Every structure is written in C-alpha cells, then in structure tokens.
C-alpha cells in the first residue's frame, strides 16, 4: 500500500537520508528501527513532505504522492503521529480531535476503518473523562494518547507513528502497545519508528533497520528480536 524508492532528504547542506527503499502492505505493522540520528523520524517526515529538501519516489495506494503537499498527503489517508506529543495545548481534548477530523474513506470500494470520538474512547479510555480539558493540563501519557487519537480522527488507512514509546512511563508504553494491536485488528496499517526493541517486538510484523540514513537490514520482526549480532551492530543494544 505504501512503496518507497530511493528516498533522499537534506537538512540545509547535510544529507540525512541515502535512498532507503521499503514498503508497507495492507494491515501490516512495520517497524523502522535505528539509533538516534539514523534517519527514522526524518523518513516519516519526508513521507509527509514535511521536509522541504527531499527527493525519491513515494507511492501510496498506487498513486505517486512524491510531489504532494502535507495536507494533500494527509487527505489521501496517510496519518502522521509526530514525536514529542505535538498536541494543541491551548485547545481542549474535543477541539484537538476536531482539528484532525476528515471524511470516511473507502478502500477497494469498501468503507475503510473509520473512527468516532466514542469509538476512540474505547481504545483510549482515559480521554473519555476529559473532553473539555485543555491540552496543557494533561499528563504526558494522556497527551501521547491524544496525539494518536487526533490522527485517527482523520480516518487514515496507514498511520506513521514516530517513537510513541520515547520518554513515557513503562505503563504508558504498554497501553500504547495495546492500542496499536487494536488498530491492527481494525485493519489499519502502521509504520512505526522506534528504538525500543521490546516494544517493537510486541506489535510489529516486519522491521527495517536504518543506519546513517541507509537501509542496513530488513526482515521479520521475530528474526530481528533474536538476532543479537544485528541488534548489537545496528541498534547498540
């Protein structure tokens, strides 16, 4: 459903992505792993066209989206959940969710997974009690949940999740893992950028490993989880 070929990206004069190619299939949860600075977040941002200087071919649902703007990409059904919980802290929970709202999509003629606030509250129960709370007054874990829920309001077909386990309590990381498993059950595809291999192991089918902006390994998540040599070399475990 998502096919990426030869992605390149630059920050100023510095090139950070050196043509990784990868794909995500229907209903798959795929991990994009690597050390800090390996290019994981950059890859997700480049897919969303949030990095001005980039090149390469990105196809989503057999359409070339390489030259589209971020909002057009989002409207095609690619949802993006940023790192560091970028919620709108002046807005309430309900308002945050409203910003993410988009029409229900269809995939192959059938309605794709779609979300209402009520349905989201079953996956993220702690958000149910605080629709009128401002983002600024939520705990980090609650904010993390809201970021994911907000993107789901756009009824995406594929979600790009940027390091959802970073900097949150272990108990929240577990809740996040459960949420991702739920999404998979709903039929959503997920591309997950992650450093925590234990977390990735819980939710992912396949994995790609980046190092210095290049693709160094790819295969089944289960294989990566047992391949200590690769973990040591590429993930500094």
């Amino acid at each position, binding site marked *: 459903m998502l096919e990426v070929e030869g992605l390149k990206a630059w920050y100023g004069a510095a090139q950070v992505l050196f043509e990784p190619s990868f794909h995500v299939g229907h209903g798959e949860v795929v991990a994009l792993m690597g050390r800090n600075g390996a290019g994981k977040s950059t890859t997700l941002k480049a897919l969303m066209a949030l990095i001005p200087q980039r090149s390469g071919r990105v196809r989503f649902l057999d359409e070339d989206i390489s030259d589209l703007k971020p909002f057009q990409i989002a409207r095609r059904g690619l949802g993006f959940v940023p790192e560091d919980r970028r919620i709108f802290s002046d807005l309430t929970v309900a308002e945050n969710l409203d910003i993410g709202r988009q029409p229900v999509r269809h995939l192959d003629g059938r309605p794709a997974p779609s979300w209402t606030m009520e349905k989201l509250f079953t996956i993220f129960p702690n958000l149910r009690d605080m629709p009128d709370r401002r983002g600024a*007054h939520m705990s*980090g874990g609650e904010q993390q949940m809201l970021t994911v829920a907000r993107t789901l309001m756009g009824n995406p077909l594929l979600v790009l999740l940027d390091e959802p386990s970073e900097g949150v*309590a*272990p108990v*929240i*990381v577990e809740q996040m893992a459960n949420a991702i498993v739920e999404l998979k059950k709903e039929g959503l595809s997920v591309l997950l950028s992650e450093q925590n291999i234990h977390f990735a192991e819980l939710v992912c089918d396949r994995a790609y490993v980046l190092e210095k902006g290049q693709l160094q390994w790819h295969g089944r998540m289960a294989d990566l989880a047992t391949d200590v040599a690769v973990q040591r070399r590429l993930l*500094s475990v």
Partner: protein
Amino acid sequence: MSVLRVRNLSKAFGGVHAVENVSFDVGDGEFLALIGPNGAGKSTCFNMINGQLAPDRGDIQFADRSIVGLKPREIWRLGVGRTFQVAATFGSMTVAENVQMALVSHHGEIFRFARALAARHRERAFELLEQVGMAGSAPRACKELAYGDVKRVELAIALANEPRLLLMDEPTAGMAPRERNDLIALVKRLVVERRISVLFTEHSMDVVFAYADRIIVLARGMLIADGNAEAIRDNMQVQQVYLGAGRTFRPHAQAQS
C-alpha cells in the same frame, strides 16, 4: 551526611497540586533515581531544586544551607551542576569552547573584553573533555556532533565548576540502549571517583535498576515509594501506576562494563 535535603516541598499550578509534601535526602556520593509517570511532578520537583520555580511551601537545603529563592545561576555557583532532558549546549561554538565558556563563568570572567576566550583555560577544558571521552572532538563545531556525543559534552560542561551535586533530567532520553548504558556507566564512574552526588530522573528502567543506589517514586505529586531496585520492582503500587507488567523493558538487566 546528606548533600541535598528536601522537606515538605509543595507546588500547585492553578489549584492542581503538582508536587505535594515531598521530602527526601540525597546522600553524599549517592546515585539517586527519581521515577514516576509523566506528569507526576518530577520536572516540577527538579525545577524547584534548580531554582527555576519557587516552591509554594517547604524547604530545600544544599550543603546545609537553604537554597529556596535563589536563582538558577546562584545555585550553580554553590556547586550544583545540571544536564537537561534535551541536551543543551551552545551550537555555534566548538566543543572546547563550550567547556571553556563554563570555566570562564566559573572563574568569574564573563565581563572580560580583551583576551580571547579560545586562549583561556584550555588545559582544564581538555582534561574535562578527556574524562568524558570527547577530547578528540575538541575543535569540532558542537552542532556537528551525534546526539550521544552532545550528551557527553553537556556532562563535561556540568562538571566544569566541580559540583558536589549533579541534577540530570532524563539523561539518556533519545539514546540507543548501549549508549544509555555507556553514558550512565560513565556518570557512575565519575560519581565514585569525584564523590559527586547525583539526582536523576529516567524512564529507561534498564538503566535505573542497573545503576541507581536508591530509587524514589513520585505519583500524582506525592512520594509513594523509596527503596533499592528490588524493593521498587516488587512494590505493587509502583507496578500499577508506573512499571506496568514490565513487558517493554528488561527488568533484570545487569550493568555492563
């Protein structure tokens, strides 16, 4: 003998108690971890100790002297170094200049207008960089460094005024497992060698359980547990509000050398 004594510390924001009646000590040469869910009040606690926030109630004593009401830079002058969750260094300076800047400040030479900074305290800066394994990168621009290396430079900066207490806010955030381990091992070594006390917050339980001498746990602004790794790991309340079932970290990781 405790270096830092926190007594009945409280702070509320708009009626919400961020920190409530928290008391603890950091012993001389102790490596103390402060853990807890996001929003439990760890940052608020930290920011009161380093002077960025004024507590509503309570007292903080460093080396037997109350530091409540002092500015961050005054607290630094008393011998409290700190590192930030997102490493804060001076991007437009070289690695050596970053450390020299801290040394120049330590020696009260900020308002000097003649001799170049680059010529001041060079040897000492190199010594500090050597201790954190960054001497080889001294002439490089700090903005070019990999994140793990920036963290090391930050540590060298924090050590420049020979602190008795180091405050480290999520020191390994954003690092790979081995980098985390290496950095904390380095800190632990320095702590032992120089008899510095460290108070740090952390979400990486592998690191906390492997290295902390003692762990205190905050939840909803209150201290709910205080003990060694084993006691905290087995504490039901801590498991419930923070650790969870322990599926996303290796609960019995050992310190690697």
